[in-house]
Structures are given as C-alpha cells and as structure tokens.
C-alpha cells in the first residue's frame, strides 16, 4: 500500500493525464466508428452489387485484422506510399476502422430482429425504402444492439493500450506503466493503479450500457 501512495505522490498527475488520454482516444474513435459503421450497415442494404461486395470486404477485413497489425501498417508502411499520418490520428484511425466494422456487423444482426411484416406495412403505407430504413428499421435495430455495442466500447477502451506501440507524445495508461516499469522498481504498483483505472472505467461503461439497455429495450 505504501508503495502505491509513494507512486501516486511521484506520478499522480501523470496517471490522471494518462487516464484522460485513454478516455479521449476511446471517445474519439468510438463516435466516428459508430457513425461510419451505421452508414456501412445501411449502404449494405441497397441493391447495388458492387457496393455490397466492397463493403462486405471492408467489414470482413477490419473485423479480422489484428488492430496492432493495422496500426503498424498505418504508422510505418504508409509513409512508404507517401501517406504521412501523425501518431495520434493513426491510433484513432485504426480504432475507428475496427470499430466501424464491428458496428456494421452488430447492426446487421440488429436489423435482422426487425420483423419483415413491419417493412411490408411501411411500404404499403407509401413510404419510400430510404424512409422505411430511417423511420422503421434503424430505430429498432439500434435499440436491439445496445448490449453488443457496450461490449464493443469496453473492448475499444482496452484497445487504446496499443497506442503504447507508437512513439506518442502523450502517454496513455499502458505506455505510462511500461515507462515507470522501465525507469524504476515501482512497476507492480504502477500496474495495480493502471489496472484499477481500466477496470473502473470498464465497469462504468457497463453500468451506463445496462441503464440505457433497460430504458430502450423492446419487449416482445
């Protein structure tokens, strides 16, 4: 315990900043990832074979590629193609792409929970297909995917640890622990503090997700 308090005296503000950076990376990749994933899921509904093919490829690639491999490609290989992206945007881009692929996949499952009869009814009322998607299908699909999206958000939060793999100016939690472990003998205490921060953040997200789920779920 005394080790932890000594560590917090030395590195307290650094841990605060690291936690904030972890949160920031999480939010900044989840929001665009979620929106992009929704767009992909909707576009995959349209009867345009070339678009469907490419988007399916997109989803399968970014669902199955390890995030680190993608990050390393963006950071170290893209400059050889004269595409230079700074470290922080690279991390956010990596997580956004992965998040969007999973979102599109989960949303597809959510769309499948909407009964076909509802779509037929909406069409027979004279709604255009696009209007049916935005007014009937999407709202119900989104309400059905709160739970998997919560898990995805937690997984994404944990994945921000891969920012420690690139020479980032700021340090998020995992990078901070590896620096402290390199510099001093306080590695174990640093690990305990960082782990507690990750676990508490994850539990908060899980709690928020469960609350939202209770509010919006559709009882059938």
């Amino acid at each position: 315990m005394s080790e932890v308090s000594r560590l917090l005296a030395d590195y307290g503000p650094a841990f605060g900043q690291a936690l904030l950076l972890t949160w920031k990376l999480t939010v900044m990749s989840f929001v665009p990832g979620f929106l992009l994933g929704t767009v992909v899921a909707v576009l995959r509904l349209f009867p345009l074979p070339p678009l469907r093919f490419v988007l399916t490829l997109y989803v399968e690639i970014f669902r199955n590629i390890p995030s680190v491999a993608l990050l390393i490609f963006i950071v170290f290989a893209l400059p050889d193609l004269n595409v230079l992206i700074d470290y922080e945007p690279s991390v956010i881009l990596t997580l956004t792409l992965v998040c969007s692929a999973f979102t599109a996949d989960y949303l597809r499952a959510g769309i499948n929970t909407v009964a076909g009869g509802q779509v037929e009814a909406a069409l027979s009322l004279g709604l255009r297909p696009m209007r049916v998607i935005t007014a009937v299908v999407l709202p119900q699909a989104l309400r059905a995917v709160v739970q998997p999206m919560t898990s995805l958000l937690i997984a994404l939060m944990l994945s921000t640890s891969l920012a420690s793999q690139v020479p980032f100016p700021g340090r998020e939690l995992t990078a901070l622990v590896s620096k402290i472990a390199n510099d001093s003998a306080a590695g174990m205490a640093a690990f305990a503090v960082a782990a507690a921060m990750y676990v508490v953040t994850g539990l908060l997200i899980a709690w928020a997700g469960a609350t939202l789920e209770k509010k919006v779920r559709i009882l059938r």
Partner: protein
Amino acid sequence: MSRPLEDILFGNPSPQALALTRVVSVIAAAVLLLLAAGIVVRFHSAGQLDARFWEFFTWPTTWAFLAKGLLGTLASAAMAAVIALAFGLVLLVGRLARLRLVRWPSIALIEFLRGTPTLLLIYVCFLVLPQVGIKLSTYWMLTLPVAFSTAAVVAEVYRAGVLAVPRGQTDAARSLGLTEAQVFFHIVFPQALRYIVPALVAQLVIVVKDTTFGYVVTYGELMQNAKVIIANYHALVPVYLVVAALYCLVNYGISRASKRIGRPMH
C-alpha cells in the same frame, strides 16, 4: 425462414427504380474501380511495385520463414486457448460457488482479468515480473497473459451457457440423488457447452489477434518474423500487406467455422 429484410425493402421495384438501380450500380462500380486504380498508381509512383520489393516472395525461404512465424502464432494461440478453457472452468466453478469466501475473489479475479488490456498484462510479464525474480521464456510471456485474459471472458461465456440450461435439469438430477459435483459436471455443464460452442470458437479469433503482441516480447510469431524480413529487404508495404492478409485469412476461416458450428443441430 422469412426473406431477408433488404429483399422485402427493394423486392418489387418499379421499372424506373430498376433502371435507376442499374445506373447507380454502374456508377458505383466505376467509382470503386477508379479508387482501386488510384491506389495502384500511388503504389507505382511511390516505387512500391518495383521488382526488388516483391521478388523475395518468389523464394521458398521467405515463405518458409513466414510459415514458421504462423506456426509460432498458432502454437501460442492453441496453448493459450487450452489454458483459457481449463482456467475459465475453474473461474466459473469459483464464480458459482455458494461460499462467499470463494465466490467474491473469483468475481474480482474475473473482472480484473477481463477489465485490463492484454497488452498491459504482457508488459507486466515482460517488465515487472523479472524485477521480482520471475523469469519466463518469451513463449510464456506472450501465452500466459493472453490465456488469462481470455480465461476470464471464457468463464463469463460458460456462465451464460450454464444459466441457459433449463432449471428442471438440475432439479431432476438432484432428485435422482446425484451429488452437486455430479449434477454440474455430468448434467449441466455438458449441455451448457452445446449452447456456447460458437461463442467459444469466436473467442479463438481474439486469441489469434492477441498473439500479434508477440513482437513486444520478441517471441517468433508472424508479426515478429515479418519485422525480421522487413529489416532484411526494407520492404515495409509488401510484407505488412502479406502478413495482414494472412491474419485475415486465418481469422476469417475461424469465423466461418464458428458460424457453421453455430447452426442449430436439430
């Protein structure tokens, strides 16, 4: 099985809509082809299509080395999966125990392992454990953290399965005079497994992805071997592309297998 939603949505288009769809399809195809062409041009203008960046892929030694890396990945992933399945069962039994003294530490351990990034656990095995005198080989420095964080997830998957087994099964087994252990291991758990096989196989994909961190501890898996090849030929783009494709293929194969197994059995 009812029709897919998109077939209902766009099922009977009017002639105008049909024509419009065709036109948009063609335009979309053209735009996507242009995009692909743009990427190829970019590769060419950056000199990444030069023969020297690709010719070593025609040598068997390159592929042998990559295959060795893939084997390293699979060896670590397989061991991690086996440990996770076994340790996950231990965590589950602890989680379901009546005794609070057993249950609460199990819950805490599950939440802790599930809630910390695997990469952080790897750093602990790599940087912190040597400080307190525990030295692991690079294989275990990678495999153990992956195994433990997967075990916690597997324990929760098991629990979902166990909770899905109808209660009557437990009651019937108890009334036949089976002990609690017999009820769990002979009646409940085998049935729970059937529900969760797809989820368990899907977890394998995450294990394979997590072993990518092997290069952090310089364990010879696919990513690490790719780095060695890159150091030899300075061919970042081609090697990383090939490696990414290999990972995608392996994981896609596993996902497909899990979907196939996931089909209802009756």
